[in-house]
């Protein structure tokens, strides 16, 4: 365990993993409650176009990824708010557009190839620089700040949008806030687990947590703990076993889900027996 701290790149990677493990499930709780589990995937695909745009224009890919994924998230939100009927189709269109745009733009970029994209698609946590860690830290602080500041209002919004409106909440602003926060989370998590697996960190710890909890607050808190266990644990085991960190993190999170599914069933059964006379 000490050995891992002797490598600067691993220390940076662990800090990034810790931040992602905290931020992604916090936003994810609201997204899952809103039944938008695939939102993260949609944004992740769109972010790929942003990354490629960065290479094409010679700007930092993280920056262009932030811009493009925010645009994508806002577009998804606007389509969602318009009406449900076309929502999933619109989401699908963005998926395809995002991937196709990314592949095409990276081909146009000088010296760029699909191999360049691979590290973004599947993550490359060991290449995280000090500067990256700072960007991730600022974004994570923003995401957690949003949850702390607007959590109460977001809870009402995600429960029932119309009730939120009759409570005088700024429904449109809050909806866009969820979308933008999700977009930032995607960019934070992109380096750690890769764009294709980003959404797993927003959804799986929440799905695991809710097998064991009764309330919203406890679900979010436990999901954040599970998120950190998955990212830090997955990264550490990937270091020792020499496997891909992104995959190790997501598989660890999924293993936790399977365990919690069983534990939750036992828990409910004993509770039901308790309740029965």
């Amino acid at each position, binding site marked *: 365990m000490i050995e891992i701290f002797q490598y600067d790149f691993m220390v940076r990677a662990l800090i990034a993993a810790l931040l992602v493990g905290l931020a992604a499930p916090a936003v994810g*709780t609201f997204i*899952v*409650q*809103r*039944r938008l*589990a695939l939102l993260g995937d949609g944004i992740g695909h769109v972010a790929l176009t942003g990354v490629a745009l960065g290479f094409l224009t010679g700007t930092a890919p993280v920056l262009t990824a932030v811009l493009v994924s925010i645009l994508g998230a806002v577009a998804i939100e606007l389509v969602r708010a318009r009406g449900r009927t076309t929502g999933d189709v619109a989401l699908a269109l963005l998926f395809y557009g995002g991937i196709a745009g990314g592949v095409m733009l990276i081909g146009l970029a000088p010296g760029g190839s699909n191999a360049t994209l691979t590290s973004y698609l599947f993550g490359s946590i060991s290449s995280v620089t000090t500067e990256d860690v700072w960007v991730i830290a600022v974004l994570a602080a923003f995401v957690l700040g949003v949850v*702390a*500041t*607007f959590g*109460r*209002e977001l*809870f*009402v919004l*995600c*429960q*029932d949008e*119309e*009730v939120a*409106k*009759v*409570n*005088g*909440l700024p429904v449109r602003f809050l909806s866009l806030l969820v979308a933008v926060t999700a977009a930032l989370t995607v960019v934070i998590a992109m380096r750690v687990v890769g764009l294709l697996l980003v959404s797993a960190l927003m959804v799986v710890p*929440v*799905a695991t947590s*809710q097998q064991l*909890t*009764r*309330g*919203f*607050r406890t*679900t*979010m808190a436990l999901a954040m703990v599970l998120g950190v266990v998955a990212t830090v644990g997955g990264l550490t085991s990937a270091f020792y076993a020499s496997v891909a960190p992104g995959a190790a993190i997501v598989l660890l999170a999924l293993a936790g889900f399977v365990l919690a599914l069983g534990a939750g069933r036992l828990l409910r059964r004993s509770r039901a027996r308790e309740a029965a006379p």
Partner: protein
Amino acid sequence: MMTRSAQAAGVSGPAPRTAGAPAAFAMTDGHVHLDGRPVLRGVNLRIEAGEVVAILGVNGSGKSTLVRALLGLTPLSTGSAELFGVPPGRFREWWRVGYVPQRLSVGGGVPATVREVVASGRVARQRRLRPAGRQDRAAVADALDAVGLTGRAGDPVAWLSGGQQQRVLIARALAGEPDAFVMDEPTAGVDAESQADLAGTLTTLVRQGKTVLLVAHEIGPMAPLITRSIVLRDGGVAHDGPATGGGTGCHPRPGHERERPPAYDVAGGPIGSGTTQ
């Protein structure tokens, strides 16, 4: 107990219109089109503070649309609506209105406890970043007590029966301590026992002088509390007059109301001039 208070409510009747005091709810020549189909056709009504009004009518008569338009959830195509004298779009004192939607959207993937949902009814009275205070906790405890769910406060709402979930929604509105309640079919799909509980809760509200506007299919055990009923037919007001409560067991059914001519005009205004298209 219920009968006594019902008599009291019957005696006091609708609150007299005090000069200058705006109506709790008002609509002037309200028209609503949904998907090009007229749903409300020229509705005029004025509900004074302290009135307990039932909006009756068969399915598709426009009851829900009417209350949604009064709250600004459904835009009027022509005409105007007012909440406490202000159009919904410019209304700011949302803490004065408690909305009970038709059913709890338990849909959200994340569990929430009864207490969490009820406490969220305080949102219009709370400030960002400020934790819940003693007043908030007391209001939530009172609301839980009023609907008889104190013992279930820690349970996830999804564990509750339909009738109990309806009570959770009412408690959420109660927790906000509003001046006026808007309840959309609070008795739909609710067993007789819960209906009686609801009538008890309403009795307390009536005694406190709250304004209650409720949409109902049939008002059942709440009949003695209703001071005025408005019957909608084909999007117009077919009848507007004092309710014939009194616990005689004959609850006014829309079908009966239709043939009965309006006894007299309660508020003396141009209400009840429902269109007969």
